[in-house]
């Protein structure tokens, strides 16, 4: 492997790790808000979030068929494929076009946002913890 590429990758990794760590903290807060278990199995189906797994605590990365919660950026058919009801989008477009999705983490107006679809959560019998209620749609 080229040293130059390695050093550049190392520098970009320092930056990326800050961002990935924050993203991991956010996804972790969302996961623990939706799944009331100590150890949660999640599937991350978003290429831009591949690096977040190493920062998770009490969260295991699994394939979507075994997941308590799926984060996806693009697959609106993932519920059927994975036989899961709890899908959280990392794309606003997917959230807007898939009413079964419980919420989304996305960029809007130049800043990251989180939104939960309250009706869908009620239908699934999930109530949001106090710290997440302000993000309910």
């Amino acid at each position, binding site marked *: 492997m*080229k*040293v*130059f*590429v390695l*050093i550049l990758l*190392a520098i970009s990794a320092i*930056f990326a790790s*800050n*961002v990935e760590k*924050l*993203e991991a*903290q*956010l996804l972790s*807060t969302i996961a623990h808000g939706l799944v009331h278990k100590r150890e949660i199995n999640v599937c991350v189906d978003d290429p831009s979030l591949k690096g977040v797994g190493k920062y998770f605590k009490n969260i295991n990365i699994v394939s979507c068929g075994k997941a308590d919660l799926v984060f996806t950026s*693009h697959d609106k058919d993932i519920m059927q494929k994975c036989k899961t009801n709890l899908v959280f989008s990392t*794309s*606003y*477009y997917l959230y807007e076009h898939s009413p079964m999705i419980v919420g989304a983490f*996305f*960029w*809007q*107006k*130049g*800043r*990251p*946002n*989180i939104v939960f679809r309250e009706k869908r959560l009620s239908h699934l019998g999930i109530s949001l913890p106090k*710290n*997440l209620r302000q*993000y309910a749609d």
Partner: protein
Amino acid sequence: MLKNIFIYIMMLLLFTDVAYAQNLEVLLNELAQKDDLSVHTKKESGGYLTIFTRQDLDRMKIHSFKELIEKIPFQRYNEDARGLSAPYYQPYQLNDPSRIRIFINDRELISPLFGGGLQLAGQMDMAYIDHVEVYMGIPSYDISIEPSVVVIKAYTKTGSRENTSMVGLSGGSYGANNAYAYRSEDLKDFSYFVYADHLNLKRKEFYNLGSKISRDKDIGDLYAQVTFPKSRLEFQAIKTKMDNFIGSSWNITPKNSNTNFEYLNFGYNYHSLDKSLKAFVNYSYLKDRHQDSSSSAPIGLSKIPAFPFYIPFYSSSVDISEHLLDTQLTKKYEFYNASFLLGVKNRYKKFIINRYTRDGVDFPIGTNYSSEDIASIFGEYDYLINSKNRFILSANMERYIENSRIKGENVPSFRLGYIYHSDNFTQKSFIFYGKFRPTTEELFQNDILSQGHNQIKSEGAVAISTQSSWQYKNSLNTLLIARTYLNDFIYFDGTGFRNNSDQYVFDTASFKTVYSFSALDKIEFNAWVSSDDYGKSSSNRHEQKYGGYLALFKNFSKIDTYNSISYMYGYDGKKHGWNYNATITYPYSKKLTFYLKGENLLNKAMGTDYYRINQITGSKTILNDISPFDRTVWFGLEYQF
């Protein structure tokens, strides 16, 4: 008054929460900063970098680029005799675009004949801009096609980061008002961003001998962008009608003096997925109709053919079409512990004077000069000695091809850089040697005045600079020191253009510190000094200029505040200039935000003396101490659909 402002700022500081809760909102705020678009677009080796992030611009409620100029070390915002943004304005001297260039993404805003992107964009609304990067100290050649001391790179908002529809309305002092709207969406395979704005920029008026002196502007702007994974299409259209401020009248009594200006741009930008290959093509068309007249004095002299006499004329009009075609291709090669960036670029400028009249009669221009082509090749070798030490060598060769009687020229330039980087400390040093070619407007006017007998030389520059940056707890500090030598400075002496035989020497130093109390709250302080030596022939050989600013961004639960005071001293014999700006933003709901914004609230911003000389009697009419910043209060709202 100043004392009260300082007490107010200090009180705000006392109420700052140094410790803050690690809740979801804090994480979102931190992510907004750490994953700001500027993190993906900035080029650290490109020069000495100042970034205005999306959050900064949002919280300042920046209306136009002019508000940012005073935040750049060694720069003072100023306006020319036509009321256009021109930081280096001097009476009767032409604007020099090589001092500050402005880019929207990769496209430079420039008029092929008149240059000066800031003149075009300095006072336009910039609600379509996401963030701004300012590169100082002769930035890297892949950033700017022609060399420049300062490059302002403004990056537009993108569909993938906006994902919404917005409307903004604001009204201000003197009857100024602005309305903008944009729609953006991140779709499955592409994203788009469409923006429209109308700015009715009413400004403070002045009167001289019964004539109204106005720099009002009416600007319409349309911008559209479609972004694919490897490419981007852009379109921009601008239509402006503006009053020409003092105009050309010998006793500053302008009458029906205005300019209609239209700008159209189409751009295509391509990059490979790993961004090692980049290319763009940008075409711009500009139409400029300018008319000037005076209520009580001539505006110029016309020579009578075959006679040694001149007669005054009282009105003029000019209709100009301009075309600009920019293309650039860069390829980055990576080796064992180095990289090499190779680039070729071309800029073709065409300017056509469709019609020029004096007192309603067609008048010959006196030159056939109408095009300039700049072909250039550049390379940048970036060598990593180890993980902390980096060495950069750049070379650029430009070939200027001119038509008519103007001689072409090869213009080489070189840039040598060294960067040391450790966890909390960075040292950047650059040496630059190069030339600044006379602008097309200088070549054009010089050709008319000398009828091809006077060829002006390019200005030569050598700059040595170094910057230390260190992080200490929550503060980021930078100290920049530079010395610049400028030879063959081009100036207008009243009869023609000359190269000054004296060498100019500029010694500059700037210190900046940014202290962050939390993800949202910070205080910024900058102080700079410029010691200028204009050579032994100058009547005012030594000048000392000082400047800087203090700014506080503070959030109180729902209310967001921004306070800034800039200081200038020593320009054109002027003493102190203070410019105090403040913004209060109140989000009424998730969708609706109100804000109140004040500019130059103390009415003490540094002014400029504008003057005109009667070319027959030699008498001088002066308009004293006119500030480029009107004391203005804006009230605005933004609604998100």
